[in-house]
């Protein structure tokens, strides 16, 4: 059976399965600009946004599109590092494959969270665009609160994708629960470090946002 997987494109598919979800996962952290930086730091884990920002500052350009390209690549690098780290834990739980396959597994199962990141960064963009036209409470309700449903559904899919993918690749039932536990641990940590903006945090964040918009 293994011989079937050694076609030239199958090898390349395995490589892409690592990099594409990592790119999708991390790109949102890199696209924070001067206007949205504070909001991104509140919505996502702060150190990830700061890390991507550090990488972005290494290359200076005046072209907007190249700037966005650099920004997404910077975010993707941070994304790759996060996935590589999570894959170490997953590798210990899975135990039946090489690290590179554990990394691939972790990367593919993270696609729903990558979609979640993309959706939230789009929500941030929409929020900033309507900051001058809507009341702060309405803004909070329309973007931060309403995105919680999206978070819930993406998390649900993340966990089911993990279960299905591990079942598909022959992981025993007991280890599958271990895989889910890693997923739950990761998602709890990820949510605790960002995503859940409380009304109090929002009160602190709003003046900063308005100031950033007035300046830039």
């Amino acid at each position, binding site marked *: *059976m*293994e011989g*079937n*997987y*050694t*076609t*030239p*494109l*199958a090898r*390349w*598919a*395995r490589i*892409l*399965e690592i990099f*594409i979800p990592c*790119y*999708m996962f991390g*790109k949102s952290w890199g*696209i924070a600009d001067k206007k949205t930086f504070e909001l991104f730091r509140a919505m996502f884990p702060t150190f990830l946004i700061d890390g991507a920002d550090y990488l972005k500052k290494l290359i200076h350009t005046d072209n907007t*599109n190249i700037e*966005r*390209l650099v920004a*997404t690549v910077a975010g993707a690098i941070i994304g790759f590092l996060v996935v590589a780290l999570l894959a170490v834990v997953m590798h210990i739980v899975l135990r*039946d*494959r090489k690290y590179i*396959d554990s990394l*691939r*597994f972790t990367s*593919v199962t993270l*696609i*729903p969270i990558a*979609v*979640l990141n*993309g959706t939230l960064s*789009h929500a941030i*963009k*929409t929020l900033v665009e309507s900051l001058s036209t809507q009341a702060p409470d309405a803004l909070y309700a329309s973007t931060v609160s309403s995105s919680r449903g*999206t978070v819930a*559904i*993406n998390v*649900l*899919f993340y966990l*089911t*994708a993990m279960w*299905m*993918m591990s079942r*598909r*690749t*022959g992981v025993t039932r007991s280890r599958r629960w271990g895989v889910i536990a890693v997923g739950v641990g990761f998602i709890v940590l990820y949510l605790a470090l960002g995503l859940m903006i409380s009304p109090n945090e929002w009160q602190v964040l709003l003046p900063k946002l308005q100031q950033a918009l007035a300046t830039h």
Partner: protein
Amino acid sequence: MNITKQRFINIHKYALGPALLLYVVGIFGTKVLQIGILFAMGAGFFNLLHQKYFFGRLKLAAHIWLIPTVIGIFTYPLLMEKEPSGQNAFYCVLTLIISLVPFFLLITGTTEEKPSKKERLKIISARIVVQILVFIIYAVTTAYSFIYGTNVALFFWGMFHVFTVAIFPFLFGRVLCGWLCPNATLQDGLFKNLTYTRPITKLPRAIEEQSHSSAMYISGEIDKNAPYFPFTLLIAWFPMFFTETVFDLTGVLLYPVIFMYGLYFGSLLMPWRKMCTHFCWLSSYRGLGAQGSLWRIRFNKSKCKNCKMCQAEEACPFFIDIRNQDNEMPATCCLCFSCMEACPFEGVITFRRAPEEKARLKAAGKAV
């Protein structure tokens, strides 16, 4: 009247000639788009390009000619409102003649040649109705957003939504690819039976080989080394996401429209559904959760007579050779039930596993 193949072609040619002429003269004469005649040309070309399919299905071909008739009747008051003139009434009457003559000839005609397929399954009729309805909704929302400049391309984004691409496949497999995708509808309705030679008749061997080297395509057990998705599907993702992010296209109306039209035109270059199988990245994304979905078809191998009527390149849009499956469908199955209809025997491809099949699997030590 006995409609021979040549007579079938002639009816359409004689209808198409005046339609083409009237369309050109009509535009210059009335300065308005004669939409009824435009659709008459569409009906003529459609039937001619699908002559292999329609010959033997004369009543179905006749009904295609009802489209320009209805459109002609409905657009006539609008034309009169815009440009009240006797000329428009003249063109409306001619549209009706051009479309009703072939209709009556085909609906009353008889032919000795019959299509070899068995009677249409109810589930396939239901699928066709759903496909048409969803396509109309898609076309209307896209047209609306173009006319009013609003972003009602939400239908398109809905297809990307985590529920439709992720949760839905757990329950209904890749029903989205078989029942709801507008590109799939176009391919099934317009492109499948087209008689012209595609510019790309055969894809490189390396691309075709993917269909037995990734978890999405393999129905049985796989190991940890197998790639989850085919390479070409993965690489098709990248330009989409990259362009979207770098050029900040999220929420921009043109972006999904270009994407969908790109798929339509790309699909015309290759054999039926090859675009979905190897290049639509949404197609692969749905495959993530579709393996072993709750709603799926069952292949009762013990009842199969090996007549090969269901063979991959003929019946299945995703080129699954059902005879190679051991009662498990791969994630690529889009539940179109074409294989079920293609099979001339009862009880081979079903919704429920047959008792004999259960016994066979039990004896082979496989999960029942």
